[in-house]
């Protein structure tokens, strides 16, 4: 088994989770069960506050308001999962619902 980060990028809604369409919320609720069915394991799952709450420290120590990269789709949350291989990790990524963005699958460095 290897660990992967499943990074969720999506458009930001003015009211955050409260504005999310019901089917996306339902989709998220169903994720853990789907991951188990795939045979992978959730190590950690986190949702982030909107980018308006982010603070960035630039090279040299300058503090700025907002995310490191401004873009239409922002990091909305992430999972750390344990999976057999990339195909299984991709299967996990596919079961995470997104509105307009996408999912990035990154293998983690392991000893």
């Amino acid at each position, binding site marked *: 088994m290897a660990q992967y980060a499943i990074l969720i990028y999506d458009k930001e809604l003015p009211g955050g989770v409260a504005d999310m369409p019901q089917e996306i919320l339902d989709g998220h609720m169903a994720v853990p069960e789907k991951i188990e069915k795939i*045979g992978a394991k959730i190590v950690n799952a986190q949702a982030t506050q909107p980018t308006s709450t982010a603070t960035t420290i630039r090279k040299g120590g300058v503090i700025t308001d907002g995310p490191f990269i401004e873009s239409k789709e922002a990091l909305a949350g992430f999972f750390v999962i344990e999976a057999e*291989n990339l*195909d299984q990790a991709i299967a996990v990524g596919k079961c995470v619902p997104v509105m307009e963005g996408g999912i990035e699958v990154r*293998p983690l460095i*392991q000893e």
Partner: protein
Amino acid sequence: MTVARTAVQRAVADAHRREWAAVLATTVRVAGDLDLAEECVQEAYVAALDAWTRSGVPAKPGAWLTTAAKRNAFDALRRADVLRSKLHLLVESDVTETAIAPEAPAVHDDRLRLVFMCCHPALSLESQVALTLRLVCGVAVADIAKAFLAAETTVAARITRAKKKIAAARVPFQMPGPADLPERLDAVLTVIHLVFTTGHTAPSGGQLTRTDLVEFAIDLARMLNQLMPTEREVRGLLALLLVNHARRDTRTDSSGRLLLLEEQDRSLWDRAGIAEGHRLIVSALADGPPGRFTLQAAIAGLHATASTYAVTDWEQIVTLYDELIKVWPSPVVELNRAVAAAMVHGPAFALRLVEQLECDGRLNGYRYLPAIKADLLRRLGRTAEAVAFYRQALVLAENDAEREFLTGRIAACSAR
């Protein structure tokens, strides 16, 4: 017993073409590392040259090479534990694979696993093509670079990056599950088709075909068809390649000028290739709803079996294009459909279709659009406009044969 060196060289070259994929795929399983496996297989082929000269070409060259390559891998692994690095390749045993997908058809061939790994959608298309040629066909990096008009260092770096990703992200050396198979197979067929078209129409430079690439593509399609006999689209792709390749000798004249389908000497087409393609097309069509490769093969097959350009079954070709657009919506397919429609409904009708495509902008910069439009205008007697569009196509043309053809057309239209 010593065997003539040239005969041995031929036997080794033959084994390289026929057996490389199987030898490498089996060695990968032992080595657990793509670079190491490649090295060991390369060494085995070099050793074969001497050993076979000394004691004769073995009855089963592939088995000899596999044994030698595997032994090289075992030796290397014993010599250095360093090789058992963190970047160890993920080789699944058959047991796990069947446990994961027990309902999967029993396709147990390491060559298939190798092909599906090389054509994994997590790799860029360029990397998929380069890896497939290097690992499955055993083509030297320098030759891949030459075929794709790229710098050797670029191709080498691309292959290294792809191998690193395969190891780090654990792209598995295994068949995709049944749910993913159609999509993954399509990716494999796309790579083979791209290898073929690159060889068939050299994108730039002097020569119109690069025979080696074409043959690698046909070999790959044959291997896949032998290993996956129930997949209709594999049959369709093989048929498409065979039928197109059958026209290889007539695509240019003796001076290298491009010949249109209607100008080609049909008596020179390779009948055996067309017949084999035709059998594959019929069997693929009989098995169920056709996919994009089978439909393209069926279109190419109708062209190849027509005795003249004029008596070609254009109506049937238009119908097949309609089906093709349904399974594979693409502006290029719509453009080709317009060419066939011109033969059924006349150039004025086809020109309207081409102009619609021109307006929607998806084919901006596609060299065949102005060329086809120019041809339709020429047939309608609107020569001044035709010249303008031939000129547009000339700017976009990428090889000498096509440039020469267009220049000829411009001269002919201007002379009127």
